[in-house]
């Protein structure tokens, strides 16, 4: 039998502000009313300060070619990196390029992670490219992309 440790939420404790690094988009995002519309091109431009990113074999992006269901699409990103103080992956950004708000998640890592790998499930509104944009500790940007076909079923 499998016993799972169960941790209940402990309620509101700390005010989170200073501890979570403010997103580079925070100011941009504030200007938007209603849904967080934010194109991939715009995000890429802001994050890389217009430099753009280089597609790199060091970045592995795993997503299904055909999604069973657009509401739950598994995505895994792995980056080849020693994860030492002098050379590590600072941030893994994941984008759904055609979603209204293309930003899915930005994961800020530290050498304590020891391995530059992240996975989650995202929502895709339609067939589109999923992009992993990687910010390295030396300030360079790498990327990988994959197209995901979304078939939406309604019966059953």
């Amino acid at each position, binding site marked *: *039998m*499998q*016993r*799972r440790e*169960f941790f209940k939420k402990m309620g509101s404790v700390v005010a989170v502000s200073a501890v979570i690094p403010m997103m580079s988009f925070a100011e941009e995002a504030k200007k938007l009313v209603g849904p967080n519309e934010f194109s991939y091109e715009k995000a890429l431009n802001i994050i890389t300060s217009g430099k753009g990113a280089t597609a790199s074999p060091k970045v592995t992006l*795993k*997503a*299904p*070619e*055909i999604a*069973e*269901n657009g*509401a*739950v699409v*598994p995505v*895994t990103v792995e980056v080849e990196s020693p994860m030492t103080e002098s050379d590590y992956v600072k941030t893994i950004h994941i984008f759904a390029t055609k979603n209204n708000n293309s930003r899915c998640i930005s994961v800020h890592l530290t050498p304590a992670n020891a391995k530059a790998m992240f996975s989650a*499930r995202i929502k895709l509104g339609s067939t589109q490219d999923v992009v992993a944009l990687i910010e390295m500790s030396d300030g360079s940007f790498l990327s990988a992309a994959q197209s995901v076909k979304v*078939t*939406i*079923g*309604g*019966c*059953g």
Partner: protein
Amino acid sequence: MKIATKIALSLALLCSLSFGGEQFSMSDADRAMYAEMLENNPADLMVANGERLLADLGGSEALAKYLGMSEDTLPEYIAGFPRYMEKFKMVVGLDQVLQGMMHDAGKKPYKLKSPEMFDMLAFTKSLANDVKINIDVNANKHMKDAYALGQKTFDTKRGGRGLSCLSCHAPAVIGLILRTQPLPDLAVQNSGGTWPAYRMTKSSLTTLQHRFQGCMDNALLKVIPLGSPEMVALEVYVTEKSKGQAIAIPGLKR
């Protein structure tokens, strides 16, 4: 295939049907990705909640005691549901046993369709994870009758479209694509051993009987209530198809 074409036509009335098997068939790599998701199934949260709810009743120890057995034999026993129980004088599902246990403990039982019951059922069935389904439809007259009723309920055409479960889950149509969804083979899917499962389209935990209700709803068949003799019989019939396959709760479904 003549029969398949005929059924396909009647389905076409209900949903648009395409035979683009190729277009929608997933690669092995894709399938592997989804299989990996089982490792971190969101339903683990619901199962953990079910564990807490059962713990409030004394946990698996109290359940074993209620059933008059040792905790060691509990998983094998759980793997044989639905089963006839003298205590209830009928064939019951595991959720009904949990209701009985709550009742005897002087607690108001959770409704069969409540999320609490879904969670607790999932945890309780997960106690039998890796155990092979050992339902015995020939154990006694009650089980034989339930199996027969289940088969009848499965095969009988009802509703506005004149469909039965068999219309969509018969060997002749399995694999055809109904609105991008291949019609599943319930035996291959191990339906008896993989529900309660997380349904990605609903973002929630669903039980086997509730999944049946989903199909009834979609096919315009009158929805049969959870825990009713027909519903339990249907679970007996479908679970028998998975006999010998291992229980793996919570499942993860489209």
